[in-house]
């Protein structure tokens, strides 16, 4: 069996199951001390004064810095946003606030002490005199006239006003509609909750003028670049960023936060290695949150139930500052997905980005695509109800036909491939759809038992971020290619240096599978290195389900170059033309003359000996590729949730969850299934339990795991997963990416199931999370009382 497509066990695991994996907080450097950051307890306040004198003399304290004295010299001291929309307002985000604090958790000072207990003790002794000001935390309220202002330069708290699609064409479609449906919905604010808190360890080498920062990062080269350009100001080659083992990210470890820059400045100012690790409360106050949209959507239908238009207006919270990729999330990663799997001839979307006195909002698993999918899949159910059609039949009626690809949507994407019917058929078969509908009808008739609901979500995502020219034209201040270097050692073993930076995805295993498959070597002969800016050439990192599709393709292209060079060497040895050499089953031979062959190992050795060697060829066998994808990839699938609701308490139980995903070719099915499972839990978590809640004063009410309801094992069922395979046509591996599928599809599937169960109460929509209270009120306020 080919190693590509095999569920081989992960090479990452032996260290991690024995406690030998080294995460940031596990690292110790000689003379290391600890930093604790003093954070604002107010959502909005003027800093009148900061008195550090008592803290400075507390036991073990080495130094105390405020925003006025942490950053030396001209450069540095702010964290930037890297996605610039037209007319985007970009207020500075200082790494420690100087005059104003803008959210609870905004840093105002930092204490460096011999150990973490002393640092936290002394942080309590820093006296900050605040003049509290009015705050606004709700995205709709923030855009209303008279709302408290987050930044003077952002009038009305508007960060941007963006739109996509053809407004006139869409209005014309609505004027011809036989039917319309509409919905006002919220996409709840979430906290990512990687189980490893964010942290950084910074070390300054004064003699060399070099800074090393170990940081919980999904993209160490991007962190380094932003440190050079904005927060630190040292030249790029004088900063080394290392992502050691990273305990989950889900987007939250993409962004450049003030904290790692604070640790670095503390190290440069004190000459000591400085470690900072967030407490869980700190992660909740400072890890970029996700989602937080308020939307109005309308869909126009013709008399037969075909969609003829869609218009959407969304207000998206940015929080107190623009985080690294924040402006892209509710715009290009959201509006572009609003065609879903459907042939919609006219679409217009407008998004208003608003500053609020809250933690910044940025990419969280799915990033824009779960929000789009939730909206389109919710309004699809409303459309089906309006037409009196089964939700599956209504979707099928509007699917883009399998022969219509490549399909240009009205919202700027060209779907390269797709075949949506078979995935839906399979998912319906997996749950036993007709039997469920019969059971539901029986329960409704008899009034016995719990309410039964069945929810569909047929979703698409654009991932494998992405064509650099395209994202550049859309405002990205970076290319989104990926790099790989394949180094063949003289004895034929291989080290791959990938610009991707895994943190749980199993890259060391799957990337080795790609190379082993192409070169027909044993997978154990291939080592994978990632996550260190000194070891690895510039790379863009891991997010947006891009590592297999973009990072893996880069590796494949570097292998192509290795093979091409190997052919030249083999041709010389075989006295043939390089054009006549083929590489098959781990050997080079002359096409049609299998006896004239050179083994892989002999060619590799000759590359390093260069004794019997082509005159015009450099010795060595090491190739680098920078792969710039031609398009996004377009994974899709059909997800079905089955819920039961207690009629007396409103408690929702997820009885069954089945999904059929199409992520293209699969390198390691075991890992792909694991990615789906984890994504599902996060999406189901949003649908049923999770929500970041602020009070009117800007206090985060869900600041601990007592209040923020993460999904736990007893709250979830085991999942039924399956796949169809429609390979990506434009990358060499045919893979599409799987990291976000579950999180994108499942909020809508679960919500649709709950609304389906409650449809006899006249309920058409409920916002997430679907808590018992919310469901009970929906049952009891509609006045029907039937079930």
């Amino acid at each position, binding site marked *: 069996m080919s190693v590509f497509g095999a569920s081989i066990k992960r090479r990452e695991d032996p260290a991690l199951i*024995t406690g030998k994996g080294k995460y940031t907080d596990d690292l110790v450097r000689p003379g290391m001390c600890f930093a604790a950051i003093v954070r604002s307890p107010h959502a909005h306040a003027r800093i009148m004064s900061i008195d550090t004198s008592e803290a400075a003399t507390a036991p073990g304290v080495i130094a105390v810095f405020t925003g006025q004295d942490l950053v030396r010299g001209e450069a540095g001291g702010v964290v930037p946003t890297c996605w610039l929309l037209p007319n985007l307002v970009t207020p500075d985000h200082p790494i420690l606030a100087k005059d104003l604090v803008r959210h609870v958790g905004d840093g105002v000072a930092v204490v460096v002490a011999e150990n973490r207990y002393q640092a936290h003790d002394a942080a309590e002794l820093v006296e900050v005199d605040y003049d509290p000001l009015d705050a606004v935390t709700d995205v709709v309220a923030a855009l209303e006239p008279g709302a408290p202002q987050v930044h003077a330069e952002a009038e009305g708290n508007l960060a941007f006003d963006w739109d996509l699609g053809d407004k006139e064409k869409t209005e014309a479609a609505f004027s011809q509609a036989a039917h319309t449906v509409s919905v006002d919905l919220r996409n709840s604010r979430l906290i990512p909750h990687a189980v*490893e808190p964010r942290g950084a360890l910074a070390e300054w080498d004064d003699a060399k003028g070099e800074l090393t920062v170990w940081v919980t990062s999904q993209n160490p080269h991007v962190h380094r670049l932003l440190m050079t350009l904005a927060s630190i100001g040292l030249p790029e080659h004088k900063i080394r960023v290392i992502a050691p083992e990273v305990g989950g990210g889900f987007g939250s470890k993409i962004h450049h936060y003030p904290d790692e820059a604070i640790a670095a400045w503390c190290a440069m100012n004190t000459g000591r290695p400085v470690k900072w690790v967030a407490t869980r409360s700190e992660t909740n106050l400072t890890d970029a949150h996700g989602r937080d949209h308020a939307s109005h959507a309308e869909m126009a239908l013709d008399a037969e139930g075909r969609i003829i238009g869609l218009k959407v207006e969304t207000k998206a919270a940015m929080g107190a500052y623009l985080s690294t990729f924040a402006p892209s999330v509710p715009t290009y990663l959201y509006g572009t997905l609003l065609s879903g799997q459907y042939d919609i001839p006219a679409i217009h979307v407008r998004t208003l980005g608003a500053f609020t006195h809250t933690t910044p909002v940025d990419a969280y698993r799915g990033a824009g695509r779960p929000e789009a999918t939730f909206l389109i899949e919710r309004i699809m159910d409303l459309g089906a109800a309006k037409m009196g059609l089964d939700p599956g039949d209504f979707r099928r009626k509007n699917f883009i036909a399998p022969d219509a690809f490549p399909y240009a949507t009205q919202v700027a994407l060209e779907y390269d491939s797709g075949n949506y019917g078979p995935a839906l058929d399979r998912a319906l078969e997996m749950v036993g759809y007709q039997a469920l509908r019969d059971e539901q009808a029986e329960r409704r008739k008899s009034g016995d038992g719990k309410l039964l609901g069945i929810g569909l979500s047929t979703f698409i995502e654009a991932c494998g971020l992405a064509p650099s020219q395209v994202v550049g034209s859309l405002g990205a201040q970076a290319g989104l290619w990926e790099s790989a270097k394949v180094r063949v050692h003289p004895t034929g073993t291989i080290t791959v240096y990938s610009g991707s930076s895994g943190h749980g995805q199993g890259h060391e295993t799957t990337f080795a599978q790609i190379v082993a498959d192409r070169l027909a070597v044993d997978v154990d002969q291939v080592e994978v290195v990632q996550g260190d800016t000194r070891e690895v050439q510039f790379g863009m990192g891991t997010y947006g389900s891009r590592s297999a599709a973009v990072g893996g393709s880069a590796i494949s292209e570097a292998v192509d170059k290795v093979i091409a060079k190997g052919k030249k060497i083999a041709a010389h040895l075989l006295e043939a033309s390089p054009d006549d050499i083929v590489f098959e089953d781990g050997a080079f031979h002359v096409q049609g003359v299998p006896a004239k062959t050179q083994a892989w190992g002999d060619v590799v050795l000759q590359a390093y000996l260069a004794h019997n060697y082509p005159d015009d060829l450099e010795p060595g066998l090491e190739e680098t590729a920078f792969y710039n994808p031609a398009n996004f990839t377009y994974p899709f699938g059909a997800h079905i949730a089955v819920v039961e609701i207690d009629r007396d308490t409103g408690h929702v139980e997820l009885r069954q969850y089945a999904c059929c995903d199409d992520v293209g070719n699969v390198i390691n099915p075991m890992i792909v299934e694991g990615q789906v499972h*984890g994504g599902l839990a996060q999406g189901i978590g949003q649908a049923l339990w999770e929500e970041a809640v602020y009070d009117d004063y800007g206090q985060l009410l869900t600041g601990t795991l007592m209040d923020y309801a993460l999904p736990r094992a007893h709250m979830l069922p085991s999942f039924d997963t399956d796949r169809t395979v429609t390979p990506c046509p434009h990358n060499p591996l045919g893979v599409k990416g799987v990291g976000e599928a579950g999180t994108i599809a499942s909020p809508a599937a679960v919500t649709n199931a709950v609304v389906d169960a409650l449809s006899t109460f006249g309920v058409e929509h409920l916002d997430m999370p679907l808590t018992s209270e919310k469901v009970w009120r929906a049952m009891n306020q509609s006045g029907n009382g039937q079930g």
Partner: protein
Amino acid sequence: MGHRIQIEVNGKRYEREVDARRLLVHFLREDLGLTGTNVGCETSLCGACTILVNGQSVKSCTQLAVQADGTSVTTIEGMADGQDLHPLQAAFRDNHGLQCGYCTPGMIMVAAGMLADNPAPTEQEIRQGLKGNVCRCTGYHNIVKSIADAAEQMNGKGGDS
């Protein structure tokens, strides 16, 4: 003011002076260098720091080191017998029961405590037993599978835990 404690960790006896307020997890990680036990929330709510104290699973982030005076502690580093993985460790690998690995030591230790009490748990019993431990990567699906597999292996071998 230091307190002298005697504690056995993974079969090795230690005598150390600790502050009264020093958390057991920091004693293990920083004083003994056993960094396999992770801290996720410092409030007993995520379970990443779960260890065994006298055979019972305990969250070491909310126990003081002085409270562990005179006890026998097992951490993730003490689970394998030389090169031979504990059946739970092997099952987590075989069943892809981990991704980022940060919650994994806690998951393995809570499962060890669970299987000591109930050597043949049902899926629901496993899920109930994991209530206090958070995983954000796996959706628990393969963790549950791993523990069921380990239970089977251990029972097949006569239930040594």
